[in-house]
């Protein structure tokens, strides 16, 4: 049997979840994120692939963030309705991860299964400047991947993508 199960729990697993979250400086995250983008950029050939890679990394983060957040913010009750989970995403989830709530949540006019979470200045794009030849790049693809993982893991499989919307995301 895998020694992991017979050895006894590591101290990390024994820690309580609800400890007060401390905060770290934006500069550290921004630099880490820039390295991440540079790393992806070196291995891809097109903007679409770069966004796909960022989305995959965001996916990785989102899967792990969901459980901890749900346990902390909504103990004992999981969202089972689409609108509920979207409001949870826009409010508590966005606030816990990015420090402020998403600005707007809208439903598309023509398709009632499409929603938009609108943010004026996404945290991940804070120090990103996009050169003109890659002007369709939106590093919020990272946040989109995160969102996709969260929705998928919450039982609402969805396709999430980041778009420029009248100058915002």
């Amino acid at each position, binding site marked *: 049997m895998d020694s992991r199960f017979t050895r006894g729990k590591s101290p990390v697993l024994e820690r309580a979840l609800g400890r007060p979250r*401390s*905060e*770290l*400086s*934006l500069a550290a995250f921004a630099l*880490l994120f820039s390295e991440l983008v540079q790393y992806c950029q070196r*291995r891809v050939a097109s903007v679409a692939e770069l966004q796909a890679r960022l989305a995959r990394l965001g996916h990785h983060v989102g899967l792990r963030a969901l459980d901890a957040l749900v346990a902390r913010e909504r103990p004992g009750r999981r969202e089972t309705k689409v609108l509920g989970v979207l409001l949870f995403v826009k409010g508590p989830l966005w606030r816990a*991860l990015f420090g402020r709530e998403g600005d707007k949540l809208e439903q598309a006019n023509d398709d009632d299964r499409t929603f938009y979470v609108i943010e004026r200045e996404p945290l991940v794009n804070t120090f990103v400047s996009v050169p003109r030849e890659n002007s369709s790049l939106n590093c919020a693809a990272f946040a989109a991947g995160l969102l996709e993982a969260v929705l998928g893991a919450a039982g609402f499989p969805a396709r999430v993508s980041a778009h420029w919307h009248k100058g915002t995301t």
Partner: protein
Amino acid sequence: MSRSPGRKQENHKISRELFVLTYGALVAQLCKDYEKDEDVNAYLDRMGYSIGIRLIDDFLARSAVKKCRSYSETADMIAQVAFKMYLGVTPSVSCSSAMGNEFSLILDKNPLVDFVEELPAERASLCYCNLLCGVIRGALEMVQLAAEVTFLQDRLKGDAVTEIGITFLRKPEDRKHKRN
């Protein structure tokens, strides 16, 4: 500046979970792309280096510390001010050589491994936090202090604490000052 002064303050902090999970995603991606642990470690160190050379500017701008007069002051500064500012922990410093140029920072709480239980068996020699070594090395180099930074002990590999060793190499410009 077109931004109102109040806005800068609220943007300075982000959630620790986001940072830690993003770092984890990065390491996971590197492990998928590179087979050998040494390659992953080397890449993490290199990324840390390029982060460090920029982080030092931010650090000096925000902390306004005076010039350090000795290696031990520098090591103390890194431990008590820089780590506190960027990771929220304060490692303890100990000097481990008679000449005064080898120091170790002992971290009992490492936020980067908050969500890491253990290293997988096939990645036993991965230095998960090697980015930190690169960051310290890059930052020191930008203030004209060449140093070697490595992990001496790592909790993920079974040691009791995480220990980072900083060895200051001789300053290259010592000779340049002899001008007459």
